[in-house]
């Protein structure tokens, strides 16, 4: 009995240590005062002073940093730009990932394993190296332009544009879209399609009226898995988007490492978390009602 309750507590301990505690640290930082150079940032919690120490500590926390975020357009612009990259990226990923997952799920079982392997294969190489490889492909004297030149076509300048960011996002996140979609599509009872055909639905009607609605939990899961990390994505916009591309990840990085403004960086992180929790809760709820329905 004791052992079992310990096992039940373990995930909460994990969350406490690796989510709640760091979150509180970041939250505290975001409420602290900006100071030049180094941490620690005031106020400091003085436990030796007892209750009075805690009271004065709490009193010294304020929302000054958040006000600064709200007043500076830079932050708003990077938020919106990140949300746009993530949203458009998610739509493109769905448009590419759904047909891929559908095709895979309709493949003979022996071939499915190989296709699944091919989807997972890129994970065997470092993410950073793969993005650097895109730089090599897209740069002005890169592989792409060499190939275009060889064919007698005009060169393209894609690197350091939004297009390059989308290319990188779609490339990097495609497996996260394909895998959950494949999981729901592969599980779908093939007799449902036969039943739809039997009742007079053409293959296209059968897809839109049966296959697609039933795969909604997979669509939600894939969109969630891609959208959330894409909002905070740093490496792809930094390497492929060039200095002109403003995103949350880059702003955060600049605040933290270039400006050494930890309170501002923490506040950006907290706002990002809050804006992401809202769609997460919404989709989670929708997914659970869908799961209850199917």
């Amino acid at each position, binding site marked *: 009995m004791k052992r079992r309750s310990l096992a039940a507590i373990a995930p909460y301990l994990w969350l406490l240590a690796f989510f709640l505690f760091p979150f509180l640290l970041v939250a505290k930082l975001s409420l602290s005062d900006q100071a030049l150079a180094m941490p620690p940032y005031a106020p400091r919690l003085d436990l030796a002073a007892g209750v009075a120490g805690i009271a004065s500590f709490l009193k010294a926390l304020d929302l000054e940093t958040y006000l600064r975020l709200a007043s500076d357009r830079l932050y708003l612009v990077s938020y919106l730009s990140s949300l746009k990259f993530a949203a458009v990226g998610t739509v493109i990923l769905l448009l590419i990932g759904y047909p891929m997952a559908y095709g895979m799920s309709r493949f003979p079982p022996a071939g499915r394993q190989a296709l699944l392997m091919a989807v997972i294969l890129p994970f065997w190489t470092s993410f950073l190296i793969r993005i650097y490889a895109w730089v090599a492909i897209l740069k002005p004297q890169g592989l792409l332009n060499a190939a275009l030149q060889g064919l007698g076509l005009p060169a393209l300048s894609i690197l350091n544009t939004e297009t390059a960011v989308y290319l990188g996002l779609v490339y990097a996140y495609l497996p996260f879209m394909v895998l959950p979609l494949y999981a729901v599509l592969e599980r779908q009872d093939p007799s449902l399609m036969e039943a739809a055909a039997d009742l*007079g639905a*053409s293959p296209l009607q059968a897809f839109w009226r049966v296959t697609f609605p039933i795969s909604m939990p997979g669509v939600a899961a894939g969109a969630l898995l891609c959208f959330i990390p894409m909002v905070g994505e740093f490496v792809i916009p930094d390497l492929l988007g060039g200095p002109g591309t403003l995103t949350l990840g880059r702003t955060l990085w600049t605040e933290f490492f270039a400006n050494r403004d930890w309170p501002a960086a923490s506040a950006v992180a907290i706002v990002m978390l809050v804006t992401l929790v809202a769609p997460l809760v919404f989709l989670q709820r929708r997914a659970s009602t869908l799961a209850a329905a199917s």
Partner: protein
Amino acid sequence: MTSRQSLGAVRSSFAPWADPTATPLVRFEAVTKRFGAETAVKSVSLDIYEREFFALLGPSGCGKTTLMRMLAGFETPDEGRVTLEGQDLAGLPPHQRPLHMMFQSYALFPHLSVERNIAFGLQRQGLAKAEISDRVAEMLALVRLEGLARRKPDQLSGGQRQRVALARALAPRPKVLLLDEPLGALDRKLREETQFELMALQQRLGMTFLVVTHDQEEAMVMADRIAVMRAGEIVQTGPPPEVYEAPNCRYVADFIGEVNLFEGQVETADGRLVRLSSPVCPQGLEAAEDDPLPKSAAAWFAVRPEKMVLHPTPPPPGPNLMQGKVADIGYLGDWTTYVVEVAGGQTVRAARANAARVVENPVDWGDTVWLTFARDAAVVLSR
């Protein structure tokens, strides 16, 4: 047999298959289907008539489902053709065939409510909204699910799901309703009830039903005719009493119900009576049989357990008499089955109806008993 006699205890006046002028609704003409090296269906020819309740019966893997799926359009025959009302169905995709199927798994759409599941086929036919809702209401009443129209399939019991699947397939009024193991997922009591419901429904709607089943009792109870299949071929086709009382081979005799098979060599066969010599019966076996059989050929007598008579005391000697020891007794309430070990180690089953509550001189395990059967109780089989 005289005209006042018939096989089994049933007399039916519905027999379009016996009428040479009747045209069948569905025709399988020498249909063959192969999957790779495997031949699932071997040159099967079969006629199904309008308003008939037809059962394809056989063990799993015998090709019965493949045969049905070729009619529905999910499989294409490699040879032969399938016709509906005289029209060749070749090249017609499933969604254009006026046949509907109730799937073994029911295949209800999990994201749609009961009423929208039932409406699915009607919407595909492009009916007006008012007509669809009328027809859905009618179907819900027919399968007695009126209160559950807005439920999702996972909020229904197995029996309710079965009825939704039935209503969904019936709603667009198919020319033939195909039922793939319709009662397989139901428990025994519900299965028996549903058997009679399906029969009543078929009668009331005047529709043609084709059912695939491995359950011989299901086929016997419901069907006007049964086709018994084995390894891709139809072994025997006929009304249930005929298939049960006059099987044409050992396979059918054994597959449909319980049977005792006595093997022997033909001593005489004069066109009225067949006599076999057999190790289980010192005085030989005799059965009424018009067909002449070659002398000393191997033949079998098939006798159903309920047609075996069990004697606790020795009856007068004669043919069809064997002596043995009771090896097992199965008490089923309505029936008791006695397993008797006779000469040569063969076990013979004899079933007795428990017509009385109190029995004098009950038979016990290990008792010596005698078994007999009447001459017309045995079917003579040569294969």
